[in-house]
């Protein structure tokens, strides 16, 4: 059975190879090849899952050794896989949601002439992501890590003819590199500390290393997680990444890839458990990001960017939970899975709305769409209820557990983290209600509005078939798009309850991550009650502002905070002033030093050598007599030196 593990990766990898190398003759069937191979991977995943369920919970992990990759003395890197409950969870999420989004993309990308390539990239992403979660050592994980980075870059910049997309892709790639450096340093530190970087030996040996080293490794891993999961301070790329096609935003920049950081932290649980300082930093990063993303999400008028802010914020919750240690790991992953359902559903819904609205993304030019797109409205609405934590839906269970665990951390920290998490829940309710109201309720503000498309010179190719003139004609999307949305909506509604009843998810993951029950100081019931209360508060405030009053088509100037949030809390300005300018200054001074000092020394040496050579050359005057004198002198020195050596 364990021999099937490689097949999980092989199927999408084959798809990527065939689609990217196959050329134009595959244009007609390329999307089907990609979708079938993604689905095949999902089927293999389900088979393995069924097999795993039949086993004793403690012995569910499977290993497959493929080949020895870099065997050099003490440095042994293998291509080997490990499939345990944690990996299994990810495999099902990645291949399941991935397959649905493949199906959705068939419709969404129908009119894009580079659709085959798009599916090739999607398959490449699936293969890399599966490699990331299936690797049994950090080095192979790093390969997958870089692979998803590459796929993400290619897909964000898929419409590379748009300068904004090309720039966004570059930005995502560069910011991710910062995190990647963290991961590579962490791997090097592991190797010097433990002499290996395979999961098993490293995690078992954490007791032997000093806390300082473990803290260093954990912080480097956290840096990596920050890059991939868009956590403060490496969060700036995620908003721009929305330049990619919407299915990409749903799959990569909401449901799967951006959660890789959470996977990394939970996978390295033993290291983090032994490094409390690093755990504290992790919780702080998570808490800051969940507020940061939520605030940004409140101010964005672009529906995808609002959702991107939300993604950042929700991953903040997961990182916070992962930083809490054994009381949080399970809930971090549980929220990750439920989030995978509802956020993918929300993005697909947003894509469906854009599809019907001539690719307009400004929510101020939406309104009252529920009549025109009933299926999109219902599925989006269910996702909305799930994310704000409406009792009984997925997000309620997973988010509530994280807030409980944050309080249960204890002490002042517990109160602060719990408070932040609660505040975040309120803001989540606020901005999601805002999105909901602005899009599906209120006046039909798109009437008598020229479509966005003619005004923007950089038209997405997918938009061209809409006859992008005049006011839009909202319409429901085709079945190939709505069916995946319905499936995801079902997941958004029931997944949380399914996981929570009888603590199923806890028992499932406990053998891998460990679990400790946390008791919040004010009681679990009180936390749940206040979570619901702040949710209602957030919804109410949003209704007061966007439901009761008409939404202006042109954004008002807004308060200082609103303006700051619209500019992503000045993150890009900060990066530009501090990093870009600073980098430019550093480069210029280094170039100056290089030109004057380094080149000076080099050229000086060369000139000096040339001069010396010219002078020495003159000794070679062509007269045998002076050669003989030189030999005689040399012999005299040789003899004298030999005698001198003895005398000394």
């Amino acid at each position: 059975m364990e021999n099937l593990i490689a097949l999980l990766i092989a199927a999408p990898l084959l798809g990527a190879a065939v689609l990217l190398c196959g050329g134009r003759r595959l244009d007609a069937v390329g999307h089907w090849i990609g979708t079938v191979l993604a689905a095949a991977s999902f089927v293999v995943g389900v088979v393995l899952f069924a097999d795993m369920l039949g086993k004793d919970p403690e012995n569910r992990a499977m290993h497959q050794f493929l080949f020895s990759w870099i065997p050099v003395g003490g440095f042994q890197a293998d291509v080997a896989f490990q499939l345990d409950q944690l990996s299994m969870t990810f495999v099902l999420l990645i291949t399941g949601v991935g397959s649905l989004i493949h199906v959705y993309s068939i419709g969404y990308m129908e009119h894009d002439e580079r659709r085959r390539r798009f599916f090739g990239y999607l398959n490449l992403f699936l293969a890399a992501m599966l490699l990331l979660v299936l690797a049994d050592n950090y080095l192979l994980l790093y390969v997958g890590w870089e692979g998803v980075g590459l796929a993400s870059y290619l897909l964000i910049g898929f419409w590379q003819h748009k300068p904004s997309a090309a720039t966004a892709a570059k930005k995502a790639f560069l910011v991710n590199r910062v995190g990647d450096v963290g991961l590579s340093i962490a791997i090097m530190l592991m190797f010097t500390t433990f002499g290996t970087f395979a999961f098993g030996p490293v995690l078992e040996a954490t007791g032997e290393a000093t806390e300082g080293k473990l803290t260093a490794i954990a912080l480097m891993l956290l840096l990596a997680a920050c890059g991939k999961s868009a956590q403060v301070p490496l969060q700036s790329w995620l908003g721009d990444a929305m330049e990619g096609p919407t299915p990409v935003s749903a799959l990569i920049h909401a449901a799967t890839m951006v959660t890789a950081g959470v996977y990394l932290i939970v996978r390295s649980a033993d290291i983090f458990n032994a490094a409390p300082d690093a755990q504290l930093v992790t919780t702080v990063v998570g808490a800051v990001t969940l507020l940061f993303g939520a605030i940004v999400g409140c101010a964005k008028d672009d529906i995808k960017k609002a959702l991107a802010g939300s993604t950042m914020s929700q991953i903040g919750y997961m990182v916070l939970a992962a930083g809490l240690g054994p009381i949080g790991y399970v809930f971090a992953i549980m929220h990750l899975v439920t989030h995978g359902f509802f956020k993918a559903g929300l993005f697909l819904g947003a894509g469906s709305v854009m599809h019907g609205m001539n690719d307009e993304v400004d929510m101020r030019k939406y309104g009252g769409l529920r009549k025109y797109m009933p299926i999109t409205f219902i599925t989006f609405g269910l996702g909305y209820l799930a994310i704000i934590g409406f009792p009984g839906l997925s997000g309620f269970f997973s988010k509530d557990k994280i807030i409980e665990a944050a309080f249960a951390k204890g002490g002042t920290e517990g109160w602060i983290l719990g408070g932040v998490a609660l505040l975040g829940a309120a803001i989540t309710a606020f901005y999601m209600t805002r999105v909901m109201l602005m899009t599906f309720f209120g006046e039909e503000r798109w009437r008598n509005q020229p479509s966005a498309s003619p005004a923007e010179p950089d038209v997405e190719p997918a938009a061209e078939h809409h006859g992008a003139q005049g006011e839009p004609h909202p319409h429901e999307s085709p079945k190939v798009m709505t069916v995946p949305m319905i499936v995801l909506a079902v997941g958004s509604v029931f997944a949380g309850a399914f996981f929570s009843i009888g603590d199923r998810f806890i028992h499932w993951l406990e053998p891998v991550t460990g679990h400790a029950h946390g008791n919040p100081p004010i009681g679990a019931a009180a936390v749940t009650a206040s979570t619901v209360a702040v949710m209602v508060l957030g919804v109410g405030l949003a209704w007061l502002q966007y439901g009761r009053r008409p939404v202006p088509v042109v954004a008002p100037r807004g308060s200082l905070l609103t303006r700051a949030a619209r500019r992503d809390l000045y993150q890009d300005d900060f990066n530009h002033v501090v990093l870009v300018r600073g980098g430019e200054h550093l480069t210029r001074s280094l170039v100056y030093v290089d030109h004057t000092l380094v080149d000076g020394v080099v050229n000086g040496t060369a000139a000096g050598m040339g001069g010396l050579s010219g002078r020495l050359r003159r000794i070679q005057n062509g007269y045998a007599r002076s050669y003989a004198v030189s030999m005689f002198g040399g012999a005299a020195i040789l003899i004298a030196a030999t005698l001198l050596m003895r005398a000394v």
Partner: protein
Amino acid sequence: MSASAVHSLWTTAAEPIDKIGAPDIEYGQLSPTLIVIGAAILGVLVEAFVPRRTRYHAQVFLSVVALAAAFAAVIALAAGGYATTKSGIVAMGAVAVDGPALFLQGTILLAGILGVFTFAERRLDPAAHGNRVDSFAAQAASVPGSDSEKAAVKAGFTTTEVFPLLLFAVGGMLIFPAANDLLTLFIALEVFSLPLYLLCAVARRKRLMSQEAAVKYFLLGAFASAFTLFGIALLYGYAGSVRYGTIARVVDGTVGEVTPALAGTMGNDALLLIGAAMVVMGLLFKVGAVPFHMWTPDVYQGAPTPVTGFMAAATKVAAFGALLRLLYVVLPGLRWDWRPVMWAVAIVTMLGGAIVAITQTDIKRLLAYSSIAHAGFILAGVIATTPDGVSSVLFYLGAYSFVTIGAFAVVTLVRDAGGEATHLSKWAGLGRRSPLVAAVFAVFLLAFAGIPLTSGFAGKFAVFKAAAEGGAGAIVVVGVISSAIAAFFYIRVIVLMFFSEPRPEGPTVAVPSPLTMTAIGVGVAVTLVLGVAPQYFLDLASQAGVFVR
């Protein structure tokens, strides 16, 4: 001639000499040398009795067959275990047959075969009066520019004596690294030096320059030989023997017996140190180490280019072999005395060769200085005084000799009206005109510079590694710096060939016969094979790296 023999001559002169035992000669183990020397003598007879028309073919055939047979004999000996388990001292203690000797003899013989190929090249120079000519003077004895010279050219004479001369030189070189006593060493030195002096003098073009080079080489060589001979005398005075093993034992103090006739000098360390320094000096002259290198550029430039290539490769192999044996077998007890001095020699040799080469404008002089720098690199391995040191030097010598012969063979191809166009400015843009020749030469230059995937890198890495492990870290640092300096002028030639505009009146590249092509082809092949997969040959060298004592 051993110490006891001298003694008995003094004391038993009055007694009747009833019998002199015939010396015990192991013909089989000496066969490589005997074959070559025998063929050389046969070559002289060929010169005397074979008609002029067929001499060239007879000589080439004889030389190649003799060298190949000798090489086969070396292989047979090595396969028979004489390089390892059965190694020993033969010919009444005069010659050693062991790993280093056989390895170096094999290398010299291969260099000799390639040398014969380049000597025999007759398609490069335009035919004179309908006769194909080679690089050698029509009649070496005729005065340059005289009527007799013109007559000789018109008659289509060629100097076919170069082949027996080469064989004599090879014969001497075969004995040189195997010599196990100081007199054999000296005789071998002269046997291979004298033919080389002559060979230097017989260039067809630029004859005065060639003769000047030969005279310089001869004078300075004689000067160096005198030092060597004097050093040998002093060593005899110190040890009472010229036998390597005996001297080594006296140095170690294991022989207490004093020869009465030498009672005044034996055991006097001053004699030992001065004598050793002088013998070593003679060998350093042959390898071209600073400050005994001054002859190298002039001789390399003046000698006929095929001779230069052969001499640069084979002499270096033979002389380093002898130096290794002297330092490792005779003088290991003096290690603490000679090591610092050799350090200094190696350092000035590496730096001196590399620095002066920068401003050279003649390709042959450039290669001469390059060979000086390489002598320094090899000395770095010699100084290591470890088994790795020996094997790394063996490997380096093998690799270097093929690169050298190949490089000089390429030099013979680039010609203009005055013969070979050796001035660097004429090589500008060669890569555009003759990409293949330029590419081949670039390979050789990269090997000289020690760029990975060429034999030069593997060799340099081996000697530097041995030197570093032998505790000579400073030498390695200087070696790497010199390599960097040297890389400059090698790469400059490549840049000149490929990235400069060709000159309108530039040289042409002659199409050689298969002989030179073989020499160049083998050079390139060995350079690349030793560069890409050196391990087998490194293993071979390290198996061969044990001296018999």
